[in-house]
């Protein structure tokens, strides 16, 4: 993995480190919330390593703590995590060719696929940088998320009311900051807003997790508006700038 440091620019590495630090912070609140909800330390610890997907873990803890069946909670978590399937379809190959003996790399490479590593990979311009960003962020999260969750569970008895510190606002803020470069593309922004509205409208009626998947219908906005918007958009930006959504801030 030493090539990560040669391939990525300092700015990207710093952003990845900050994202991992934020993940560590959120892990703290997650571990604390889990323990405060009545779970023993091993539940957030095992989940943070084996599931490694924050939103679904919060959901699992929340449903079980509210009296839900753990298997139903797992299914709800799986609905939230189903987004990893289109992630894998959207990314170019992050693990390299499937050479024998490299199987561990493919397995680990799949496991470290998460919201942050995917966003950082998509923000890079060429394949070597995409791979380096993916692995740097993925491995960073693999360390920081469990480390934060375990420490959070340990100090969970001290911070009784995590809501008082606004920790619940951190998770959506982290994801929002990460997709902001992509949102500067107007068509992507419109699709994202449509998806958000669909998910919010569906939330009162559907089980947790389903509204987020239903939001995929927002992608239809791209299909509808793309042919019309392309010739209509004036070349206000320099002609060299790529039309893609990525990398505006990095």
């Amino acid at each position, binding site marked *: 993995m030493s090539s990560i440091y040669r391939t990525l620019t300092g700015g990207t590495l710093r952003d990845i480190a*900050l994202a991992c630090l*934020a993940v560590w*912070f959120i892990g703290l609140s997650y571990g604390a919330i889990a323990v405060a909800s009545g*779970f023993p330390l091993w539940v957030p610890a095992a*989940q943070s390593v*084996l*599931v490694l*997907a924050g939103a679904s873990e919060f959901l*699992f803890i929340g449903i*079980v703590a509210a009296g839900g069946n*753990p*298997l139903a*909670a797992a299914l709800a*978590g*799986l609905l*939230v*995590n189903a987004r*990893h*399937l289109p*992630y*894998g*379809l959207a*990314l170019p*190959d992050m693990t390299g060719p499937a050479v024998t003996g490299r199987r561990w790399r493919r397995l680990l490479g*799949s496991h470290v696929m998460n*919201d942050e590593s*995917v966003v950082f990979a998509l923000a890079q311009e060429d394949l070597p940088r995409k791979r380096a960003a993916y692995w740097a962020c993925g491995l960073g999260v693999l360390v920081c998320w469990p480390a934060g969750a375990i420490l959070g569970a340990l100090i969970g008895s001290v911070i009784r009311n995590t809501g*008082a*510190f*606004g*920790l619940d*606002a951190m998770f*959506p*803020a*982290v*994801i929002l*900051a990460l997709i*902001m470069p*992509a*949102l500067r593309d107007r*068509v*992507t922004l419109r*699709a994202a*807003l449509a*998806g*958000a509205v*669909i*998910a*919010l409208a569906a*939330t009162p*009626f559907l089980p*947790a997790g389903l509204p*987020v*998947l239903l939001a995929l219908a*927002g*992608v239809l906005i*791209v*299909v509808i508006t793309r042919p019309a918007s392309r010739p209509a958009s004036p070349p206000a930006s320099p002609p060299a700038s790529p039309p*893609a*959504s990525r990398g505006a801030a990095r």
Partner: protein
Amino acid sequence: MKDPTLVVAGLLTLSAGTFAFRFSGPLLRQRIAFPPWASRLLETAAVVLLAALIATTALTKGHGFAGLARPAGVLAGGVLAWRKAPFLVVVLAAAATTAVLRLLGVP
């Protein structure tokens, strides 16, 4: 906590299923050749899912409204992110805004 055996079963189900999602995406991609517009569409799909995740985690709690403090904090973070503020500033501002609002009695 509920029956530990059931919790372990749920935990393992979630772990195994999540890994299956992560593993099968790249695998399917190798089998199917994607034209650029399809990749672009899938990239948008990922952003749309994340935007929906933001909206639901920022605004809702269970099946209802989460209260004003949390979305206000996320909004503060979002404005800072739009203005290209450093990442940590965005995240800490979101938490601080929510915390201060709750201190003032906003739900």
